[in-house]
């Protein structure tokens, strides 16, 4: 079954070819549409239930697994089919654009990722493709990067979908853990047992968040209209027909596993309904053609999510039909909006009038798509609408009323976008408004016509496409054939009521729109503004926090480090009752006591003195004191090294003292000094306590004694310290020499360039 993995991977492999080839030969761009067309055929001819799997990361249980069933076939056909139209359209739409090759390469990448996502049979593989689609969307929205609005929209879309995606990743990992596998088919085979798993609520909520973000559900819906900053082919392909449906796809895909959960149903129906309502109101309020269509897409996505939440064969069928219908008419309308924008020079629905006479073919295509959208009899949209009403009437409480309102709003949108611009007195357009080239018209016409064809001959898709897909959502065959009359007189009445109400609102839209647009609180307190506020707040908080943590003051860093390290070590000691005094050993002689006093006096003097020279002398006193102490404790080698180093250090320091200000006043204020004194005393005390504790336990002289014994016979040396340095631990000495060498080199490099001290 190599055809199956070939579908996404072939497309993926084409990405660099497209980028490279079209840069050299941009005239070949229209031919790229052959790729999705070929993939469409490949999807069509691959049998149901086809599987493919290859181990990818065995330690993680991740597989390169693909599977084709009714649901994924429907999606793959839409992706490749609409893709073919959009590629053709895009080549003409952006003809002559210097970055056409990059646009089409990213579009190809997107298509590959979409195909991969819907065909993947492994949760993590699906997630990988899922995030790739977000990325492609980011690059495509930001294609016109010179526009600030495009840059902002691209980033917003990415952030919302990536944030949702990460929540979803958490959910998917939990799901994989609960199910013991990442294979989707194996998870679905477990039936509804997963719904009873204790982690199920978490899984459901986290995955739903990801799907809601991707599919623009309220309150994460705000990014979608902003994404209309992208070129029209992108709006048609990504942001109405395919990518935004990916969330719907995953919800539908996992529905059999979780449909038994009340949480699942409540979440989907609740959020879906809220999304429908919000989208409908905002669609009525919008004047921009593309944004208006985007709001209506939000409505459609809400409808789909709610339908998946309703556990009923009819609902599953309604979801599939509506998904297909919406993809066809909405892609078509977006492409037409792109033509209108290009030819009439505006997308303002208030201004657009009377284009029908100059653009008759475009108008006809728009009419077909609009009628399908409005659910006119004879179009497949009518089936969808009847199914929707039938299902929604079955769910009491809010849904029927919402359905009525929302459907009426859709009629208005269809009218305003597909009819109004072409009717009435011709507007001033500067004379360029005419039907565009064939390449731009093919896709919208074909897509719109399909709505009529499927409406007239539903058997074409009923058993082959609709039923298998709906069955996959439901988890069992639906037994419903498209074209059977659904619902009764109530549905008929509702249908007509919606149509009537919609027509009424359409006629009054010129007055209705300004009233709605006047409700500025919808913007001020809407999630879009909230997103902006949140982003600014994140930056402000981050800057403030970072300034606080990294104040840039060495004193702060040092104080914090020393306090923490010594407090920690002392705590560890005290926690186990480690405070101890060593057994009385040989008492210190008077000479050693005097030395200790000298050392301490030197240390104190170094702290108190202000003159640099005095500080150096005080430090030298300490150094020589330590050296003599070594001498009295049987460490002659140490003592002499200490003396040598001390003399060198004094020479060095005195030599540079000439270049420094003679006095170095303490930079600290009095309270700071008090705090530092306390800290210094504490650290010193902690050090003393730990050292005493160490000295109070018996010593293990094993290694030392061996060295003493081995020095003469094995290393031929009588001074054991020297033997250790040059023989037993010669590597330490090598390192030590390296350090000296590097330090000397580095210091000369630094001092060579030193300018005059200020």
């Amino acid at each position: 079954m190599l055809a199956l993995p070939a579908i996404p991977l072939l497309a993926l492999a084409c990405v660099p070819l497209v980028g490279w080839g079209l840069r050299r030969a941009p005239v070949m761009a229209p031919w790229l549409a052959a790729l999705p067309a070929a993939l469409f055929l490949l999807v069509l001819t691959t049998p149901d239930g086809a599987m493919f799997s290859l181990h990818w990361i065995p330690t993680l249980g991740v597989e390169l697994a693909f599977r084709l069933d009714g649901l994924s076939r429907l999606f793959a056909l839409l992706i490749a089919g609409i893709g073919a139209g959009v590629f053709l359209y895009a080549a003409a739409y952006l003809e002559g654009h210097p970055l056409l090759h990059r646009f089409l390469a990213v579009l190809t990448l997107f298509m590959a990722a979409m195909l991969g996502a819907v065909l993947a049979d492994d949760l993590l593989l699906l997630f990988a493709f899922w995030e790739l689609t977000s990325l492609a969307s980011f690059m495509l929205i930001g294609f016109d990067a010179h526009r600030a609005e495009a840059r902002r929209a691209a980033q917003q879309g990415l952030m919302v979908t990536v944030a949702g995606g990460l929540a979803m990743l958490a959910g998917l990992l939990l799901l994989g853990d609960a199910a013991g596998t990442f294979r989707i088919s194996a998870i679905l085979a477990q039936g509804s047992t997963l719904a009873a798993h204790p982690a199920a609520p978490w899984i459901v909520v986290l995955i739903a968040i990801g799907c809601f973000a991707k599919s623009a559900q309220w309150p994460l819906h705000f990014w979608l209209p902003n994404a209309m900053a992208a070129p029209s082919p992108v709006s048609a392909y990504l942001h109405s027909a395919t990518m935004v449906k990916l969330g719907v796809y995953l919800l539908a895909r996992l529905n059999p596993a979780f449909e038994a959960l009340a949480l699942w149903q409540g979440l989907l129906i609740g959020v879906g309904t809220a999304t429908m309502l919000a989208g409908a109101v905002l669609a009525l309020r919008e004047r921009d053609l593309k944004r208006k269509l985007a709001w209506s897409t939000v409505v459609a996505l809400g409808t789909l999510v709610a339908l998946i939440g309703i556990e009923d064969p009819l609902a599953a069928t309604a979801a599939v039909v509506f998904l297909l219908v919406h993809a066809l008419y909405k892609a078509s309308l977006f492409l037409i909006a792109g033509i209108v924008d290009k030819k009439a020079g505006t997308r303002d629905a208030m201004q657009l009038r009377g284009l029908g006479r100059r653009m008759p073919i475009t108008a006809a295509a728009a009419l077909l798509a609009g009628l399908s959208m409005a659910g006119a009899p004879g179009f497949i949209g009518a089936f969808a609408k009847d199914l929707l009403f039938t299902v929604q009437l079955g769910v009491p409480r809010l849904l029927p009323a919402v359905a009525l309102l929302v459907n009426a709003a859709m009629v208005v949108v269809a009218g305003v976008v597909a009819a109004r611009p072409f009717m009435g007195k011709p507007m001033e357009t500067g004379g360029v408004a005419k039907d565009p080239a064939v390449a731009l018209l093919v896709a919208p016409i074909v897509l719109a016509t399909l709505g009529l064809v499927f409406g007239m001959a539903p058997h074409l898709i009923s058993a082959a496409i609709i039923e298998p897909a709906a069955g996959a959502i439901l988890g069992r065959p639906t037994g419903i054939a498209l074209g059977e009359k659904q619902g009764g007189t109530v549905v008929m009445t509702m249908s007509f009521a919606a149509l009537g109400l919609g027509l009424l609102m359409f006629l009054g839209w010129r007055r209705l729109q300004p009233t709605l647009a006047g409700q500025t609180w919808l913007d001020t307190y809407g999630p879009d503004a909230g997103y902006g506020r949140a982003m600014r707040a994140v930056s402000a908080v981050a800057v403030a926090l970072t300034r606080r943590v990294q104040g840039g003051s060495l004193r702060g860093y040092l104080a914090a480090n020393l306090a923490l390290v010594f407090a920690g070590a002392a705590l560890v000691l005290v926690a186990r009752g480690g405070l101890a005094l060593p057994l009385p050993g040989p008492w210190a002689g008077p000479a050693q006591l005097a030395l200790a006093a000298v050392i301490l006096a030197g240390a104190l003097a170094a702290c108190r003195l202000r003159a640099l020279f005095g500080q150096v002398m005080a430090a030298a006193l300490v150094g020589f004191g330590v050296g003599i102490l070594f001498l009295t404790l049987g460490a002659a080698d140490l003592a002499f090294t200490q003396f040598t180093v001390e003399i060198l250090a004094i020479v060095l320091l005195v030599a540079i003292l000439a270049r420094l200000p003679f006095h170095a006043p303490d930079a600290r204020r009095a309270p700071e000094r008090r705090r530092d004194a306390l800290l210094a005393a504490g650290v010193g005390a902690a050090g003393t306590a730990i050292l005493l504790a160490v000295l109070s336990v018996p010593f293990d002289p094993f290694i030392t004694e061996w060295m003493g014994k081995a020095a003469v016979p094995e290393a031929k040396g009588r001074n054991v310290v020297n033997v250790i340095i040059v023989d037993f631990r010669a590597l330490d000495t090598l390192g030590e020499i390296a350090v000296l060498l590097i330090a000397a080199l580095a210091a000369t490099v630094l001092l060579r360039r030193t300018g005059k001290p200020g």
Partner: protein
Amino acid sequence: MELVLATGIGGLVASGVWLLLRERAFSVVLGLAMLSYAANLFIFAGGRLSAEVPPLVLGEVAAGTMPADPLPQALVLTAIVISFGTTAFLVALALRAIGESGTDHVDGGREQER
């Protein structure tokens, strides 16, 4: 002896910390020097202070006199040299920083970049 030494080391550590926090490049150097004396004494003391005899193998070891532990001495020797090298470099760096920013304050003009 242990008590005297431990107290002395504690004093050295305290003075080192105090000087480090003084925010003047030169004081910081001296503070590190103090801490380095203390660290060396820590290691040295780790081998215990049982003897006054250097660890030389000169014929028979006299009964009752235990030579000092040679290993800590070797370690301290290495540590002294390394500290000297790094401190010398620090002095050079401090001089350069002073030359460039015109102040011996360790935070310089407090120019912040992030």
